[in-house]
């Protein structure tokens, strides 16, 4: 588990995208646009798509995480956590 930090670096593209979605979520909340459910769904689906694409790529840096002994479900868990934890926090803020 102590090497889980590397999932964050490994998924930096996902982090950028999910940060953008967080901003969209806040804007929707403040302007009362009905897009929040779509954004929440995207935040959940994106990590799975990201992981699936990495898994299918033969040149994948997933081997790096595997060599650290990290298993698939742990990687997926961290990606989901990364992508959606802010939504839970935002629920408290708004």
């Amino acid at each position, binding site marked *: 588990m102590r090497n889980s930090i590397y999932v964050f670096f*490994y998924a*930096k593209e996902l982090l950028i995208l999910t940060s953008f979605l967080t901003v969209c979520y806040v804007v929707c909340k403040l302007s009362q646009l009905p897009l929040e459910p779509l954004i929440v769904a995207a935040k959940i689906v994106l990590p799975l798509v990201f992981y699936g694409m990495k898994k299918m790529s033969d040149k994948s840096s*997933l081997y790096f995480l595997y060599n650290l002994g990290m298993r698939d479900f742990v990687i997926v868990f961290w990606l989901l956590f990364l992508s959606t934890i802010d939504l839970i926090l935002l629920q408290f803020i708004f």
Partner: protein
Amino acid sequence: MLEVDNIEKYFGDVQILYGVYLKAEQGKVTGILGSNGCGKSTLLKIVFGAMKSKYKLIKVDGNIIQKKLYATGLVKYLPQHNFIPDFMSIRKALQLYKIEETDFQDFFIEDDFELSQKFGHLSGGQRRIVEVFLTLKTPSRIILLDEPFSHIAPVQIEAIKALLQTEKQHKIIVVTDHYYRDITEVSDSIYLIKNGSSKHIQNLTELEDYKYISEGSLS
């Protein structure tokens, strides 16, 4: 001892591996040879646990391994392509692979690597040799190397061969590469993947008999 048996792999309807058997022992380098697309890399990925197969049986020291081999922490795998992320420094990679910095500096005494250098700033060849070194030198019990001699300068290939001979004393090493002369030189035991099956090579002339190399190539 690492023993893999009955490995069958399909890509769609096409069967690539038909019940492959392989035995690799500590103190010996086990080489895998085979023509392009015969399934050498696929076999290593299946053993490592990164690829599923229809059937497989993996035993380490006689014990059947039910979970993915990489999840046991017993194995390190060098894939064909660069796999260490660009953002990582050599120093950090050494820590993660539990290798002393002095071992690295001793091995690369002729090269001017900075430990703070990030992998993304290394050339393709530099990156490859460092990745091969890390995978070989790490204290894991089983080492799987896919094309460790590719993209590496001849003088460094010799250094890697010497390192293989040292590390095999306390590790189980399986290696595959297209450069069959390098494989035959470093290996104590050789398997040829032919028509989806593994054949244990007792004498190098069998490589000619199986038409893996043309007749007279060995002379």
